[in-house]
């Protein structure tokens, strides 16, 4: 068994990214090198997946060194079922992005690749660090490559979007830092296990919860902290949008389940109603906003926010479930619904952004009103687009269905109103997804490109892989459910024990 596999996963892409940043000679070597590194990371993460023991409750692959003794900060890495799955999601998406990037015609190619490689390593760092400050460092450092990706290779209004993105998320993360430092001043540790054991008074928990929840709510993003996301998505280059939607939003969700719910459950419980309301607003109201969008990327961005509303709903109804049924299994179902939604949305939104990116590459427009009749010009491609749009609205048989179903079932147990509002998404998301397809794919040809512009082999491969993953996740969810069951049970028991 490879020791220090997590360190390898983090530092190999980061270091090779730094090397790549200063190498700018041969484009071919650049491409091969980039794909190889990403493949190596993917292979390592699959190795991690295979060697992971599903029935062990504690963290695995632990690496623990004293990093800064004077400040109690450790270099403490380890994974459980949740983080392993998110690491796999991360490496798959980055590998697909690296393949997709081969098609691009951009300048400063080496720096573009380097930013993605560094982002890859830092995200794995976020998902695997078990020391709060180490987590914070990765969490915040992740902003820098994303900032550069949006700012350098983005659209016309990229500067506004990148600055808004950076400052918005930095604002959240300093609140996170304050909370971690406060916790440290009480228990003198940043170690996750001590954080789980710590007990705070109700007032402390409420304040800690508010600070940390704002930090992660901005990242997810929850209504009303979501305004940076549509801007960032519209301006980011396609691969940037893919990473943003598929990975970065998940960092916020991961933060909730790792650092907020088990650490300050009493605070979360006393304020959960506000977050449930905000989640419901995100699901219904932001879904309605998505309908009115004329920019395809913006539409998908708003639909992402709406889908993330499900994730947060799944997180915050657990307290009401606990009050009603006191059954730990109900909590697990709700949480696993959220996590399933996270993973499913990672693939669905990534594929939608890749589709939109390819349209933009050909027609040089993302406006729905400018496009029509794509089916006539690019049939294969349109088929995939239709499939992903259906997956986006939670068609049974696709991965989105599983997560949404679990969360709606759980919210039924908690309160009928929640279930009622959240099921409205089945109509709303169908509305915006299918109407998008109707306007873009069907109809008369508006812009006639006189060439064969259907998906090339590389794109076909990427889209097919993504579609396959979405279908497999849709018809055989048990693998992922079993995989994270033990970890979720552990987290739920921690929460219940503290309540």
């Amino acid at each position, binding site marked *: 068994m490879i020791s220090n596999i997590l360190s390898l996963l983090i530092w190999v892409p980061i270091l090779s990214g730094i090397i790549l940043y200063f190498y700018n000679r041969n484009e071919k070597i650049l491409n091969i090198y980039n794909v190889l590194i990403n493949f190596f990371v993917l292979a390592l993460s699959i190795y991690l997946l295979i060697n992971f023991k599903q029935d062990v409750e504690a963290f695995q692959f632990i690496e623990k060194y004293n990093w*800064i003794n004077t*400040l109690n900060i450790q270099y403490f890495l380890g994974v459980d079922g949740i983080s392993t799955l998110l690491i796999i999601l991360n490496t798959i998406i980055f590998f697909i992005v690296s393949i997709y990037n081969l098609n691009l015609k951009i300048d400063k190619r080496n720096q573009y690749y380097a930013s993605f490689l560094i982002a890859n390593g830092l995200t794995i760092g976020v998902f695997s660090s078990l020391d709060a400050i180490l987590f914070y460092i990765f969490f*915040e450092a992740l902003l*820098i490559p994303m900032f550069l990706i949006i700012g350098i290779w983005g659209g016309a209004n990229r*500067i506004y979007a*990148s600055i808004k993105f*950076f400052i918005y998320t930095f604002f959240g993360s300093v609140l996170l830092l*304050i909370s971690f*430092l406060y916790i*440290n001043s009480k228990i003198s540790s940043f170690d996750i296990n001590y954080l789980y054991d710590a007990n705070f008074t109700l007032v402390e928990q409420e304040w800690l919860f508010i600070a940390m929840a704002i930090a992660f709510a901005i990242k997810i993003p929850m209504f009303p902290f979501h305004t940076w996301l549509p801007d960032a998505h519209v301006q980011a280059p396609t691969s940037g949008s893919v990473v943003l939607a598929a990975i970065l939003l998940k960092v916020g969700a991961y933060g909730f389940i790792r650092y907020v719910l088990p650490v300050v459950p009493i605070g979360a419980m006393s304020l959960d109603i506000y977050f449930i309301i905000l989640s419901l607003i995100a699901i219904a109201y932001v879904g309605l906003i998505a309908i009115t969008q004329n920019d395809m990327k913006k539409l998908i961005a708003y639909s992402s926010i709406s889908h993330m509303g499900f994730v947060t709903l799944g997180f915050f109804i657990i307290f009401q479930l606990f009050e009603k049924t006191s059954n730990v299994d109900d909590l697990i179902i709700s949480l696993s619904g959220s996590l399933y939604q996270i993973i499913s949305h990672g693939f669905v939104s990534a594929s939608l952004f890749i589709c939109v990116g390819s349209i933009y590459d050909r027609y040089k427009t993302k406006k729905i009103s400018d496009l029509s009749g794509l089916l006539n010009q690019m049939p294969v491609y349109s088929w995939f687009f239709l499939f992903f749009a259906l997956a986006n609205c939670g068609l049974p048989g696709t991965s989105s269905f599983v997560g949404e179903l679990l969360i709606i079932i759980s919210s039924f147990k908690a309160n009928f109103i929640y279930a009622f509002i959240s099921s409205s998404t089945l109509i709303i998301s169908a509305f915006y997804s299918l109407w998008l397809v109707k306007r873009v794919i069907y109809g008369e040809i508006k812009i006639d490109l006189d060439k064969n512009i259907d998906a090339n082999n590389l794109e076909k491969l990427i889209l097919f892989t993504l579609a396959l993953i979405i279908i497999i996740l849709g018809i055989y969810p048990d693998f992922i459910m079993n995989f994270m069951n033990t970890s979720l049970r552990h987290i739920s028991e921690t929460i219940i024990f503290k309540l």
Partner: protein
Amino acid sequence: MIIQNTITSLFHFMPEIILSISSMVILLIGTLEFLKKYVFQLTILSILLASSFSYMVYPETALSLFNASIVKNDITEFFKYICYFIFLIQVLISRKYLNIRKLDSGEFYSLLIFALIGCLIIISADNLIVLFLGIELSSLSLYSLIALDKSNSLSSEAAIKYFVLSIIASAIMLFGFSYLYGLTNSLSISEIIVFSNTNEISNLYLFSYILIFIGVAFKFAVAPFHMWLPDVYEGSPLPVTNFISSIPKIAFFVLAYKFLDGNNIMQIDNFHNIFLFLGIFSVIVGNLYALAQKKIMRLIAYSGVANSGFIFLALYAAIEYNFSVSAFYVASYSFATVSLISLVTYISSKKYNLVYIKDFKGLSASLGFISVLFMVTLLSTAGIPLTVGFYAKYLVIDSLISKDLILVATLVILMTVVGLYYYLRIIWFMFFEPGINSLVNRGDKLSVLILSFIPAIIIMVFLFPEPIFKYIFNILT
């Protein structure tokens, strides 16, 4: 503490003596037509000589020289090394800049070394008279250095402003010294601390301290004593700005440390709250003013005001803990700001004047590596992880929180979010905007190597901070 007689004192005081002699020699050589071109080399040589000698006579235990008017211990030597290192980088980088503007005369280097000696004396003085001597030596040299560029009207304006305000600050400080002497009947700082720990602290005694720390606040440019800073930064030649921004701050930090360490006066609310209020006020004022700046040096100046506010907050937090937090902050900030101004100097020395922030547009296209260095340094000043500035801000916030000042901590850290905007603005101009200048990338390798020292240190210390923390925590407790 081992007391040395005059002869051995001279031996231990050798680094400063070497510097004094060499600065006079440089002044002399500068007037001779055929030796004029060697002043730069001589300056470098004297710094290297002084610092290596300083290493040779490194005190095993604390030393007291010249009838207890000079002390040497781990702390003074640590900060002196930082001064030597920073000074060396500043001088190495500024040669071309001075050359183009015809400022590289003997008197420039000589005055700069005198200013350095002044700061070194402030660091090691234990006697109020010697301390004041050091303050005046460095200030007087700086007045003339600021005004040295006679072709620049801003330069003279800056010199006059600095002269008048600095004289007032020195006078207030001296006033405080005289009260202190009258009350304690002693000129030695260590005896004064013993006095304040054994006697009841009277209001007049407190008042003298407040006067002294108004002087310190002026030198740190803590709001509301910051008015001189933007004009001086903008007006003076960049190498001089580079000096003013770092070495005097280190020196005055050591002065503050000497006055406050183990001093009961820190326990008095009316006194230590001054640091808290000035610190908060300064962080707010510095960050908000910096947002509105159009010129790069004024921006660095206001960011300096904000950072000085953090230093004062760290001094406030030192009431119960020790000064290691503030010492680390001072060191980290000086390194970052020296790197920033050195980079500006380097770019400006290519006959391309970097005055406005918009001049940064498209810099990464022509000076790619330099832009990366700039970005690292800016992120360090802003306190983003992957740079050592993160630990500096972290420690200050941490100490505020452990004193239960959570609201203050939240306020100042939110102000750094505001401050982030102007740092990001420079980064976006460099990387995101198309270039408007036709700067040819013909950077000389040596300067780039020197410039990359500090950013490399910034990242290395971030990754492996433990030895530095241990060292600083060790010498300051």
